[in-house]
Structure formats: structure tokens, C-alpha cells
């Protein structure tokens, strides 16, 4: 295995949680809900996945626990913002802070334990393709899931009737309500899907990326995922492109150090965030495509009147 191949493998591992969390948040935002609690849901997923894996010995149970904890945690957000019509921004921030705290409590007894790494699933024949084979077909389940979820979300949003309804709810909730679409139910489902994806992304961190539990181990990836949704202008496949770009930037700091390039490590670890800012400035110039894709009701609470 060449050095280039090895670097690409680490990029994939770094990008997968970003892609998963972002594509979940993309669905949530397409329904018109802005959930800033991705970081909190992600770190909850990481903690619960690790604890469940240690208790049962099976990382697959851990994956399920990660998904379930993210979805349940997002349900709290849904109840506050959709049923009680609390402010979405404030609630999302609170969710992040709560998630960081609660996950620390859950994982406290497990700090320092070495975990069980999720094993690879090797596709026969396909994995023998030179170069690509070992990159794409000798990976863990969560990587395959991340690509499948993006493809599924794309098909759902742009090919299915339910996806059309979801986009209509995000574009103009009053009109959607007038057409008889259940706006609140649609948003609950979208929020929970976003939570499940963030939880799965968290499970990847504690089962694949670094198989152990460290407090605050999401380390700001939830925020990058949020920026990624805007970067992708709410289109699923662009999330993959952006996710791998950001993943590459965050990995480059490790390899730059290994190659002895004299750049301060602090600068390199700040690179993903600088890239986010740069990209946000760049895309804000092309307002037309952004506005066609931007959910017009994003962040606006819906209260049906009758």
C-alpha cells in the first residue's frame, strides 16, 4: 500500500462522520427546521455507541445505540421547537451544551478503556481492483452506510412524492398546510432523521476513527457539518464533495507534520474552520442558485391557525 493510498484512507475516515451528520441536517433544514444541536447529538451518539459496545461486546449494537440516542435526543429538540414553538436557534445551542454535558456523564466510567474497532467488510472481487479496491470496497459498515444514505436522500428529495412534500413544507409551510400536508409531523420526522444521522456519525467517531471514549470527542465536527450544509447549498451529493474536502484539510495537518513541513500545528488544525469561512464567502456571491435551493421557511416556526 502506497503512502498516497494510506493518506486517502485516513481522509475517508475523517470525512465519513462529516458527510453523515451534514446529510441528516440537510434533510432537517429542507423541512424548514434549523437544528444547531448537531454537535450535541453527535457526541451523544459517540458516547452511547461506545458504552453499548463495551457492555455487549458488539460494535453493531453500538451503531444501533448511536442512531437511537441521536434520534431520541433530537426528539427533545422537536418537542421544544415544534410542539412548544420555542426559538430554534436558542434551543439548538442548548441542545449542544446539554449533549456535551450528558455524554460526559454517560461515558465517565469508560474513559481510558480501549474499545472494539468496527471490522471491515470486504467485497470479494471488487476489493481486488488495484488502488480503488482497497479504498472503496475494504471499508467498515458506516462508510458504506454514509454513501447509501446520501444516495437515498437524493432519491427521496428529488424523485419521491414524500420528498416533494418535505421540500414544499420547507419552502412555504402555510401553503403546504393549506394543501393538507401535516407540517408538524413532517418536521418531526425530518428532525429525527437528522438526529439519527448525527448519532450514527458519532458512533463512527468512537467505533472507527478512534475506538475509545474521550470527553468532547466530536471536537467541533458538528459545527463543520452545519457549515457543510450551506456549502452544499442544500444538495445531497455536494455534501459528499464538501465533506471530503474538509476531511482532507483536517487530515493534511497530520501529514504535514509527518513530512516535517514547518507550519505551526495550530494553524493546520484551524484550517477546516478557515476553509469553512472561505467557502461561505465564495458561495454567498452566487445568490441565485443558493436562493433556489435554500428552504425559504428555514428557522421560521409554524403555528397553524384555525
Amino acid at each position: 500500500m502506497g503512502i498516497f493510498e494510506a493518506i486517502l484512507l485516513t481522509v475517508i475516515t475523517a470525512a465519513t462522520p462529516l458527510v453523515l451528520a451534514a446529510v441528516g441536517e440537510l434533510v432537517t433544514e429542507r423541512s424548514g427546521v434549523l437544528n444547531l444541536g448537531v454537535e450535541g447529538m453527535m457526541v451523544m451518539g459517540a458516547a452511547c455507541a461506545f458504552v453499548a459496545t463495551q457492555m455487549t461486546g458488539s460494535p453493531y449494537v453500538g451503531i444501533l445505540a448511536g442512531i437511537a440516542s441521536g434520534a431520541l435526543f433530537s426528539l427533545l429538540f422537536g418537542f421544544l421547537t415544534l410542539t412548544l414553538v420555542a426559538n430554534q436557534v436558542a434551543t439548538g445551542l442548548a441542545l449542544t451544551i446539554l449533549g456535551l454535558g450528558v455524554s460526559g456523564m454517560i461515558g465517565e466510567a469508560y474513559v481510558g478503556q480501549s474499545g472494539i474497532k468496527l471490522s471491515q467488510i470486504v467485497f470479494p472481487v471488487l476489493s481486488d481492483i488495484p488502488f480503488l479496491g482497497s479504498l472503496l470496497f475494504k471499508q467498515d459498515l458506516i462508510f458504506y452506510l454514509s454513501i447509501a444514505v446520501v444516495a437515498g436522500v437524493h432519491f427521496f428529495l428529488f424523485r419521491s412524492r414524500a420528498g416533494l412534500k418535505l421540500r414544499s413544507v420547507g419552502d412555504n409551510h402555510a401553503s403546504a398546510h393549506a394543501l393538507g400536508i401535516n407540517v408538524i409531523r413532517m418536521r418531526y420526522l425530518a428532525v429525527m432523521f437528522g438526529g439519527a444521522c448525527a448519532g450514527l456519525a458519532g458512533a463512527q467517531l468512537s467505533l472507527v476513527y478512534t475506538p475509545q471514549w474521550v470527553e468532547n470527542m466530536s471536537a467541533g465536527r458538528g459545527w463543520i457539518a452545519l457549515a457543510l450544509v450551506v456549502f452544499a447549498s442544500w444538495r445531497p451529493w455536494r455534501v459528499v464533495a464538501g465533506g471530503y474536502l474538509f476531511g482532507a484539510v483536517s487530515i493534511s495537518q497530520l501529514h504535514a507534520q509527518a513530512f516535517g513541513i514547518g507550519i505551526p500545528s495550530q494553524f493546520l488544525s484551524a484550517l477546516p474552520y478557515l476553509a469553512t469561512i472561505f467557502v461561505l464567502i465564495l458561495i454567498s456571491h452566487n445568490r441565485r442558485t443558493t436562493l433556489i435551493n435554500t428552504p425559504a421557511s428555514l428557522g421560521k416556526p409554524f403555528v397553524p391557525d384555525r
Partner: protein
Amino acid sequence: MSADGQSASGPLLAVGQLTKLFGTFAACNGIDLDIKPGEIHALLGENGAGKSTLVKMLFGVLTPTSGEIVWQGQPVRIASPSAARKLGIGMVFQHFSLFEALTVAENIALSMAPGISLNRIAEEASALSHSYGLPLDPKAHVADLSVGERQRIEIVRALLQNPKLIILDEPTSVLTPQEADRLFETLNKLKAEGRSVLYISHRLEEVQRICDRATVLRHGRVTGACDPRKETPSSLARMMVGSDVAHVSAEGTSTKGAVKLEARHLSASARTPFAVSLKNICLKVHAGEVLAIAGVAGNGQGELFDALSGEYPAGSDDVVRIAEKPVGTRGINARRLMGAGFVPEERHGHAAVSALSLSDNLVLARNQSDRRAFLGGGVLGLIRQDAVKRATKRISQAMDVRKSGENPPAGSLSGGNLQKFIVGRELDRQPTVLVVNQPTWGVDAGAASRIRQALVDLAKSGSAVLVISQDLDEIFEVATEIAVISEGRLSDIYPAAELSREKIGLLMGGMYGKTESAETAHAH
């Protein structure tokens, strides 16, 4: 037409003693109405007369408090819009319920039964729209379409359900005269097919032209049922308003005064993808005249208002002049201090803050221009509540603003009364230049006549008045001179007496004739 069996001879829809209470307020109070198969039935009334409440009950958006709805001889309860659609009732709303980010076909698909592919819906919609003379491209994004085209989507969407009754809420308020003619042809076609149309309007001329019967509402009650062709516009207006509406005329205004407001080759690029850019606009408004700018909504009226008022200042000083002084880059307060007044289109959130009281709204608008009168305490700028309250009272009396209590929040006033107040707020200063955008949009006939008269009176007293409006009746009532705006370009300015509705209609479609060639000559 007897395909419907026993019900064909009786009314298609009969409404008996229908009442809707909001708290103790009766928006609809014991309404009786019947619609025959194959007729165009007009529902007339001022704003707040209960027209919208009535049709919302018929379409299942609101639940009636009491009364009955009989559909083809059967008493029915219409619980939701989809229930109404199943019965065969289609509705075209005044404020479109479209999704701007979606395509035409996707918009239509959302109201169709599930299980039909998007391609089939697109084909059907395209075929249907062409057969009714309302061509549509199913793949276009709604955001890119004109208001007239958006209305077509709503109509085609309703027609795809094959309805027996179509309800249209003020359909022509956003159309050019030519587009309206086309709509009337479509409606006559529907009528010939045996479908019924419930046509809501306050435009008497249209109602007389296309409707077979009319029901008139006032204050939630039926005040008349008639054949509109046998009535005169003034007798219909009396039924709507309850008294004679004062006639407004621009007589006595003239263009002989000095130029008070001028735009010289004013251009502005579009601020958002859905906005219109202004292209080389030249206009002069003289002291003593009303210049009216006609045009279909969304052709740059808002952008022109923003540039003239200074809400979005222009790139150079020279392009806008107030009283001969270049002010293009100055802000709104600087222009107000020079004696100009501005009334934007949106009452709520733009011209007034709904949650604040009338007196607070007065201070917000005039704290610079009337600093001496309203503010005290030197640099502290404390509000002199008693002076402000006196001015609020003065304005309310001058414009006959009807309100609950002395100083209620702006949002509690009806549209017409709030509009009278915000126009009166500027008139109270006796501005030398007044720019008004859509002065009577969605305002009832009595209040509209009052506002129009006040604008004409201001011009007669020697001020320059610029009125931007979509309402041709209004334009002919108040204008000394008329220009038309289309896609951000302004036509030549014509004396009001020289223009016909047809000519304005052509100008609205962007047919400038000689203007276009003069402009190209200028550019080179």
C-alpha cells in the same frame, strides 16, 4: 348537461344562514347564496365584508359556526380543502399558495392524488393549459415566472381536478388588461362546459361584463342579489358601501409648476435574483401635478420607490433630484428634511410597526423632520408624548381614521384605516414632494376615495405628487400625467387625457414604439 341526473336542474351549491364567529365578531352573519350550474356568479363587497371568510368556509379552510351547505341537493360538511376538491370545488387564491423553489409540475403534483408520475402530470398540465389558452412550461421554476403566469398555475391546478365549481378570489387585481381579457375568455369557456364560477371582485366593470348574477355583501350580511347587467356601477357601489362613494377627479392639477422631483437616467441593478433592475429611468414631477406610474406588480415599482425615497440610495448624486438639488446618494432622512414624504407599499412591517401604537409609529417616521415638535431634552431626544398624541389625534381626525381607543397598536386597525393613517402622517407635514407606492392596495372603496382625494388636494395646494399604482381606475382618477413601468423601464410620460386603457395595456406589455428606438439612439 343533464349528466348529473336529478341535481342538474336545482342549484349546484346552496348556502343557508351560514355564520362564522371569531369570538363575538360575526365575520359572516346568516348568509344565503345559491349558485346554478353553468353560471358565473359574482360575490361583491368591500374589504372586511366577509367575502374571504365565506369562500374559505366553502373550500374547507374554515369551519362554519352555524348554517348549512348543500351541494347538489345533499347537505355536506366540508372539513378540509381536500374534501372540497373531492366534491368538485376548486379554488384560485388571491395570494397564491405556490412554492417558489419548486417547478410548475411539482407545484401541481402536490395537490394531486398520489401515485401519478411527475412526467404524466407535466404532460397533462401542459395540454390542459394550452387548450384553455393559458400556456405554461411545466419545467420552469415558479420563482422565475410573472404574476400572471403564476395565476395560470393556480387555475390549471384547479382545472386538473375537473371541478364543477371554481372559486376565483380577485383574479384580475394582478393582471394587465390584456391578460384579464384572456382570463375572461377562459372563464366563458368553462361556463360553456357547464361548470360554475364564483367570481370575487370589487371591480364593478368586470362583474358587469362577465357575470350572470351577483350577490353583494356588507359587514358580513347579504345586502343585495341582482343581475349586474341590469344595474349601474353606482347602484352596485351603493349596495357595497351602503352610501354613495365620492367621485375623485384630478381636475385643477397642472404641470405648469417648477420641477420638484426628478430622476435622470436612473439605473439600479437587481438586489436579489427575484428583483427587477431599473433601466435608465427619466421622470419629472412638477409642483401642482400628480404623476401616476402604472404597471403590473413586480415590474420594478418597489425598486423605483426605494431609489426615489433613498431607502436604497443610488450610485451617484445626480440621478435623483429633489427641488433641483442632487440627492441620489443621500438617505431617507436627508430627503425628508428637504421636504419630501414617502409612503411605501407594505403597511405592516414597512410603513408601520404593527405592535407599536399609532403615536410611536408617528415618532418613528418623523423624529428627524419634526425633531423640534416631537423631541425634547436636547441631545437626549426625549419623546414629548403630549405633542405626539396631539398630532396623532389631528391626523386621525383629518383622515377620518376609525380606531378602537385613543392610541391603539397599528396592527389592530383595519387595512383601510391604517392606510389612511400612514398617508395622513405624511400629508400632515404638507410635504413639497410626496411619493406613494400603491396607496389604496387592498383598501375598501370609501377609504380609497378619501385617500385619493387627499393626494389630489395636496397637488392642488402646490406639491409634487408621484403615485405608483397597479389600479387603473385609481390612476385615471388622480393622474395629471401617466407613465407606465415595465421590466424596470419607464415609458414616455403622457397627459392623462391622451391615454386609453388599451394604450396603457400595450405599454404594460413593454410595447414602447418610438421610445425604444430613442433610447437605443441615446445609448450610442
